[in-house]
């Protein structure tokens, strides 16, 4: 059950690959990520992945980090 849980994730693209972000997106999709949004200026890719494939995304070339999307509040 937990392997199938879908996580909303924030992927940071590294500095070397920010200019070719679309190729990183393609690679992320091949690795199982469902990409919802690409933010090319800041180098962020947003979407979802099943828990079992999450760690695998971190090894995709051009990926600096994969984090769970955390909520924030007005403070």
């Amino acid at each position, binding site marked *: 059950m937990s392997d199938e849980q879908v996580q*909303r994730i*924030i992927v*940071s693209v590294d500095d070397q690959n*920010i200019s070719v972000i679309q190729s990183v997106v393609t690679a992320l999709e091949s690795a199982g990520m469902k990409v*919802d*949004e690409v*933010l*090319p*200026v*800041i*180098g*962020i890719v*947003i979407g979802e992945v099943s828990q079992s494939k999450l760690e695998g995304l971190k090894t995709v070339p051009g990926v*600096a*980090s994969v*984090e769970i*999307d*955390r*909520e*924030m*509040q*007005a*403070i």
Partner: protein
Amino acid sequence: MSQQPSFPIPETAQADATTGRYIITFGEDAVTEGLDLLSDQTGIRGLANASDFADSALDLIQIEAAGGAVFPTLGVAVVSLDEEAFSSVMTSAGEDSAILAIEPERTFYAIGDGLSADYLRGYRDAVDNLYDKATNTEVAEIKKPRCFADDIESTWGLKATKVMNSLLTGSGMKVAVLDTGMDLLHPDFAGRSIISQSFVPGEDVQDVNSHGTHCIGTACGFKDLNGRRYGIAYESTIYVGKVLSNAGSGAGAWILAGMEWAIANGCQVISMSLGNPTRTPSTAYETVGRRSLQNGCLIVAAAGNNGRTGGSVGQPANSQSIMAVAAIDNCEAVADFSAKSGIFPGAKVDIAAPGVEIYSSVPMEQGRYAAYNGTSMATPHVAGLAALYAESTGKRGAELWQLLTSYAMALPLPNTRVGSGLVQAP
């Protein structure tokens, strides 16, 4: 603009100039014991004693002749010591000794304008020290805080940050406020250049919460219907990015999309009065913050309001490349809710701004104006001021950050609570 100080410090003076003598502080009621110890260590005895003189007025020539003097009421002595004697006294000084401390006697100057904060602090501390020793039990609070108040002219916050002395307006600058949106129909903003976008699925920019309208008022507003000024960069173009729902919360995805939009549209400042209590910084926000600075955009975020329960700066303010703002009240005390610096490098509180009882705009449906508390209220003060500095100097990104912190007014408070101090207008 460039005036000469009325009492300039002599050219030859240095901040830590000393006379060659030493001030010895004795323990409570331990003057006699301390003098015995001094004489054991150094052979010095026969110091001039203030109580031997009429009205305790020491003839200062006598100090030279006797090699020093004792001020029994203050519990201190001033002595000439050679290096060896100084070392022996140093080693016998301590909190359990009759000699509490020994320090070089410094030269002080009458003060006028244009002195550095360090000089004034040193002078003040020395006077406070002597005062504390000279008076007995209940030492009244001798450091009177400056207190400000809202009046018909402006909010207290704009006085404390010296906005009311500034002629700058934020003209030509683009300030993004990523929050709960804005009341786009608020009369105080009629005629303003406003670009807005919602990043909250299913909700439009119109602010039902009030938090966004309030923050925008502080950063970019102007005056209320009675002429009381409450906003800083009143000629800036306002980029309203709704990244928090009307319920006041937002997904990282929405917030990052708002940041992308603000940076892509050339905003010089992004104000983010939002966060979570997670102490560990987020790589995504750190990366975005860094790229933002490289793109000439300074991101300012609220430190957090969990200071009462020992909270430290949360995300995204705890990113090294995002400026973390603490809140102070109208008497320049840090708000007890204001989060403290955390252990991660980016989790330092960087600067402080007014954040208690802050009067600003709210949606018409909620009464047009309200006074709120929070590091959320402090943040747009810094954002609005960043716009003024950007307008005035042409500086951007990391250089703009430097301007804000270097011109902040130092406060007598730990920098884990207030960073570089109270932000000031250019």
